[in-house]
């Protein structure tokens, strides 16, 4: 049952349970996932609500922290430039934080609130979930993300120039 799904809880300082690829077992938490959602009536909010259980099941090795409405509002009151970007899913990479703390690359984030349609938000969430699963053993997560962003930007531009339909994400 979903309600009985176990979420492992990393203890101690950030990243202390993260391990390099060679040491980590597949069930060792690699990420901490945070969800900030003030509850805007937006496609991103609805898609997250509808699919949260699935995300939980797919990412059961990694703890998910939901800030809740009040904490999310408080968060955005301090980061007003991000109002309307939520739901935001921030993923802290424990392996990176173990190496360099937060001074350099230490995770990634998705701003679902910027997507205008239900289909775009769903596709983004699916891509995000796939990315998390595919890369949870990665030793060069930052490089893979940056290469992916470059590739997507190039692919999108080529599609536009060739007169194809705009890609779903960022279109």
């Amino acid at each position: 049952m979903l309600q009985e799904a176990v979420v492992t809880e990393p203890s101690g300082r950030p990243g202390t349970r993260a391990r390099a690829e060679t040491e980590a077992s597949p069930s060792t938490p690699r990420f901490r996932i945070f969800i900030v959602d003030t509850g805007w009536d937006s496609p991103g909010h609805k898609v997250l609500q509808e699919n949260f259980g699935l995300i939980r099941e797919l990412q059961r090795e990694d703890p998910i922290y939901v800030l809740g409405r009040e904490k999310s509002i408080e968060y955005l009151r301090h980061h007003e430039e991000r109002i309307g970007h939520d739901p935001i899913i921030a993923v802290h990479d424990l392996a990176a934080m173990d190496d360099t703390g937060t001074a350099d690359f230490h995770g990634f984030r998705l701003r679902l609130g910027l997507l205008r349609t239900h289909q775009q938000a769903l596709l983004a969430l699916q891509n995000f979930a796939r990315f998390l699963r595919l890369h949870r053993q990665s030793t060069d997560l930052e490089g893979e993300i940056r290469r992916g962003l470059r590739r997507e930007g190039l692919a999108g531009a080529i599609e536009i120039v060739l007169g194809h339909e705009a890609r779903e994400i960022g279109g």
Partner: protein
Amino acid sequence: MPERWSDYLTIFMSALAVGYMVYEIDRRQRKLREIFDVLDAEDAAVTARLEDMVASGELQPYTGATLV
């Protein structure tokens, strides 16, 4: 040096096309980064705050099956 106006026009149009491609790639990448990007030094304070909330027990792993 090009000898005909049509050559100049071809060069001009080619430069425009290349410029548009560069602009479009840059625009797409910026738009993608607004939606999905890495957390780095710029996000350090926010990350630290969230990690503090976990360390202090203010935030607990969410065990519900649905968001409420």
